[in-house]
């Protein structure tokens, strides 16, 4: 069965600093991979997705993610965070048309 691991429950970053959120997946083949963001009182918003091809994926709000098959990872990055980036971030995987499987999330706090 698919599983997604986000090893960091909570990360605190200074505004303007760079950010990397970790995600590892467990599956026999390479699944489709996603990053979502959830702000308080809001639904999940898709930041970016990887299906195949170029391993560096650009998303919305200045985020990018890199797929590394050898490490079974799909880490999310942003060169300079803004206070508005404070939220919960979820990595998710999907194999074919099977169900979307989410990690437990990483809560991002931004300090001025």
């Amino acid at each position, binding site marked *: 069965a698919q599983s997604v691991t986000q090893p960091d429950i909570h990360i605190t970053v200074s505004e303007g600093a760079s950010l990397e959120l970790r995600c590892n997946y467990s599956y026999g083949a390479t699944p489709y991979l996603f990053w979502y963001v959830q702000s308080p009182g809001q639904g*999940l918003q898709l930041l970016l997705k990887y299906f195949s091809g170029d391993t560096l994926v650009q998303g919305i709000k200045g985020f990018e993610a890199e797929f590394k098959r050898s490490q079974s990872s799909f880490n999310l990055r942003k060169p300079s965070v803004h206070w508005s980036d404070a939220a919960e971030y979820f990595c998710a995987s999907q194999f074919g048309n099977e169900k979307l499987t989410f990690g437990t999330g990483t809560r991002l706090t931004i300090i001025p």
Partner: protein
Amino acid sequence: DAGVTQSPTHLIKTRGQQVTLRCSPKSGHDTVSWYQQALGQGPQFIFQYYEEEERQRGNFPDRFSGHQFPNYSSELNVNALLLGDSALYLCASSFSISSYNEQFFGPGTRLTVL
């Protein structure tokens, strides 16, 4: 475009009761999926509806059932509520069941079971 809407926003029930949650998909979407998000956890897939039929189901008991209407809106029903059913219930819609099409999530319904 109103996006995905869910009602009610919040709901309080007692153990043993039954609850119905509602979801209206984004305009142009015909597929609805439901997720349960317990506090501090990621969303867990409950089931997916397409063409008014349940197409996929996650690891949830039969107490969880659903329905999709001809206008593509959907309901999630939970019978014999347990304390452990307290969670945020998210609805997501997409165009067709293909995973290539982005799922758009609603803001959720917060269910509290006392």
